[in-house]
């Protein structure tokens, strides 16, 4: 276990170094942020002065080494647009908005998927199966901005303000964005569980369990689901990235003050420190959560050993 954790820690440091280096050079490819900081009638000289003030006129390797030195301290510099510490801005959007939305969507897409997927598999080709497959296919076949707008029009306008069209901070505000964000992964999980269950239910040990006279419910949830859950865990680990950054579209539609929109908007705004801090935090969370996913495998499937 200790060796495993050490290996993973080294691995994580490597991935983080790769990510911050990639973002450092990528943002500098997008060109100069200074035209944003000056008036439309500013002259070349004024622009050059603004660039010097930002330290962007230094040699690239000097900037890079400087950047690498300050990353471990959590110092990502000052936002070019907002003139505030970039890391502070990212953290303000991470907590609570992004965490709330991602957690709610994660719960919805996994917890709701289990009964739906199981019911689908145990009633194969029945009405429940057809309904849940159709619904999943439907949810996966719409761009999220469109689904979100339709939900707003339905729940906020047509149903007389049953749910709010924008805002954050309460459960009522969370419902529509969380449902929109969860839609595609939920649909995928239902189908994963269904096909996983169908396969597992054919296998010997499940038949044995049934033959031993164990209750059907016990067989399903104790034996079959455990195995069917593994692909769900894998896919969820991969879709965490989507929950965190792909949320930008949902954040835009629902005016949700999350991290995704902050970072993605910082690219057209050429706010290098904010992009760098945001991508770093994103990578840190992604790496951390995937470590948890790996640990989860051992809980769900005792055959998996950590090496």
């Amino acid at each position, binding site marked *: 276990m200790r060796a495993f954790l050490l290996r993973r820690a080294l*691995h994580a440091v*490597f*991935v*983080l170094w*790769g*990510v911050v280096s*990639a*973002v450092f050079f*990528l*943002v500098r*490819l*997008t*060109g100069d942020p200074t035209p944003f900081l000056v008036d439309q009638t500013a002259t070349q000289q004024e622009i050059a002065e603004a660039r010097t003030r930002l330290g962007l006129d230094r040699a690239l390797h000097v900037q890079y080494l400087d950047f690498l030195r300050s990353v471990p301290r959590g110092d990502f510099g000052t936002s070019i647009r907002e003139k505030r510490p970039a890391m502070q801005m990212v953290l303000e959007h991470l907590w609570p908005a992004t965490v709330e939305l991602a957690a709610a969507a994660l719960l919805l897409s996994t917890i709701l998927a289990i009964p739906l997927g199981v019911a689908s598999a145990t009633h194969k080709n029945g009405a429940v199966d057809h309904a849940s497959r159709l619904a999943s*296919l*439907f949810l*996966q*076949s*719409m*761009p*999220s*901005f*469109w689904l979100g*707008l339709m939900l707003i*029009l339905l729940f906020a306008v047509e149903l007389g303000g049953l749910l709010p069209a924008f805002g954050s901070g309460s459960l009522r505000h969370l419902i529509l964005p969380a449902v929109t964000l969860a839609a595609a992964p939920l649909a995928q999980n239902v*189908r*994963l569980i269904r*096909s*996983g269950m169908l*396969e597992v239910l054919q296998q010997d040990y499940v038949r044995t369990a049934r033959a031993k006279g164990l209750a059907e419910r016990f067989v399903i949830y104790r034996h079959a689901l455990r195995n069917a859950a*593994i*692909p769900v865990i*894998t*896919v969820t680990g*991969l879709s965490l*990235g*989507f929950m*965190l*950054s*792909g949320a*930008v*579209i949902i954040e*835009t539609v629902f005016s949700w003050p999350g991290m*995704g929109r902050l*970072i*993605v908007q910082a*690219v*057209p705004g050429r706010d290098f420190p904010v*992009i760098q801090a*945001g*991508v770093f935090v*994103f*990578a840190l969370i*992604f*790496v951390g959560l995937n470590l948890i996913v790996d640990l989860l495998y051992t809980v769900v499937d005792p055959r998996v050993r950590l090496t």
Partner: protein
Amino acid sequence: MIGLARDGGAILGLIVIGGTILMAALAPALSPADPVKNSLIDRLAPPMWSAGGSAKHPLGTDTLGRDVASRLLYGARVSLIVGLAAVVVAGVLGVALGLVSGYYRGFTDDALMRLGDVQLAFPVLVLAVAVLAVLGASLANVILVLGVTGWITYARIVRGETLSLRQREFVEAARALGATDRYLLWRHILPNVLPPVTVVATFSVARTIIAEASLSFLGLGIPPPAPSWGAMLDEGRNYITTGWWLALFPGLAILLLVLGINLVGDWLRDQLDPRMERSM
């Protein structure tokens, strides 16, 4: 092709896909008008069956007076090209790197897989926005971005399969008989990794078509005036109350095509490899 006849969903899916391909291929013949040429006088005409509509524009016109039906037909081309080309880019890149990784192992494997880890930990949309800001939005660049960000999924699957295949008897036997690496990869390993790759690729086409629409929403899609279903849906969202047909038709088209591809994908998965989705 066992079971196709019994799977109504897959047949439906094939019909939808076939229909879309036909629409795309015959777009010049079927279109009532030029999809790009605008005419402000004819702006926002409703479909022919609504009050104020005319047979000249069966599905109405858009905000620039362009014929919606024609744009839909030509848009099928763009959506199919983006979906297929991006998946081919991702698939070829992923399969090649996955084969190399799994077959040669060692440093190459480590380097490629760590590169993949770095890429997965990098927010896709930030990458897309930044790359398109540098390169500019165009059909080719959208395909490039959607393709290059997808290789890792294929690489991981192929690598895993290759790792286990290279230990198998028939590969060992061929190697003992003096087969070259290249021969082994091409003749023995590649054919065996293709079925799972095909299934993943099918679902990816559907996902890419959705992703293209999302890029349009962020202003990074196929640039105007070329018609794409994603861009049409995005343009239509500001006219939900005043020009419902602008969004409805491309929305339906996306829905049906993606639905069709997913249905076929489901069937393919059942046929080729029931355990497939584990590695997705």
